[in-house]
């Protein structure tokens, strides 16, 4: 099986997902993993697709041309062997909530701290909420803590950022419970 990453984004309208998946279905592609959401007024699709015989981007020909003709930005790239497999993420799963009055420079200092500490981000969403007069920036970051880092360590580093950035930050364990 040959794997590819496929991303699409464009002005939201009804029928985008159906149009995209029809093309994939008719070409004999599998959707191995995907995440699709509305960002502002744009609908964004991120997919890992696979095909038993097509092994290059050229092999798809102009399959996605109809989407591009309707204003969707389409990007297709081959994955290196094994690139479709999830990494072995062992450790506690934590959610970091960051929120405060909107201003430049909230995301970078927080994620830089995490990167510098070798903490892997597995999911990140940001949203601008509140009113036009008082916009509030909200960021939710899901991370996997390596075994040598405790929730208290993380909370401590985030507390320092809370003061320097003048935002609210909370950290909590969301490690799944097995039932």
């Amino acid at each position, binding site marked *: 099986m040959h794997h590819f990453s496929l991303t699409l984004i464009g002005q939201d309208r009804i029928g985008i997902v159906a149009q995209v998946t029809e093309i994939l279905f008719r070409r004999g592609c599998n959707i191995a993993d995907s995440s699709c959401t509305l960002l502002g007024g744009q609908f964004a699709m991120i997919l890992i697709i696979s095909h038993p015989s097509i092994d290059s981007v050229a092999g798809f020909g102009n399959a996605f041309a109809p989407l591009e003709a309707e204003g969707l930005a389409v990007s297709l790239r081959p994955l290196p062997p094994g690139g479709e497999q999830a990494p072995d*993420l062992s450790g506690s*799963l934590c959610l970091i909530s960051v929120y405060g009055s909107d201003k430049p420079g909230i995301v970078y200092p927080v994620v830089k701290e995490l990167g510098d500490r070798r903490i892997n981000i597995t999911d990140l*969403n940001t949203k601008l909420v509140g009113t036009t007069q008082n916009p509030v920036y909200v960021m*939710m970051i899901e991370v996997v803590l390596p075994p040598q880092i405790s929730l208290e360590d993380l909370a401590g580093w985030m507390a320092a950022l809370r003061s320097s950035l003048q935002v609210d930050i909370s950290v909590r364990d969301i*490690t799944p*419970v097995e039932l």
Partner: protein
Amino acid sequence: MAVREILLYPDPRLKSPCQIVEKADGACDALIQDLVDTMYGAGHSVGVAAPQIGVPQRVAVVDVSASRQGRDNHHGLLTMINPIILQRSGTMTMREGCMSVPDYTGNVARAEEILVQFLDRNGRSRAIRCRGFEAVAVQHELDHLDGRLFLDRISSLKTDLFRRKKP
């Protein structure tokens, strides 16, 4: 008795409602023992329902006493025959996983406190109030008796399905 194999979705037995136990007899007691053995045998599990080992009966066991989330608030080992929830209050969300649906977890909102009535292993009728993680575990197992999986109850859209860390 025996650690039994846990059925995995899409086994249709996980999606079928279970029968009421007519008589808490020796066979029922053997089933309970298998459920207990299977739960403890899995190491990290805090509950198993009869349909998860392929028995379509309204029987489930729960024990959260050894878990980090449940050790401060629990009733020890609960062996429940024909359990029903009489009252529910509050809500809490936990990220749940299930031995019958490997590799996926999702945020599920459930009642924070429940009053559950059941026949215990010794044939006594009991009604107990569970809170927090124990209440979540009981609700999760009782859902199995109705052929319902946590996938039917996932509550939020984003950051929901996550590959569980490997043991």
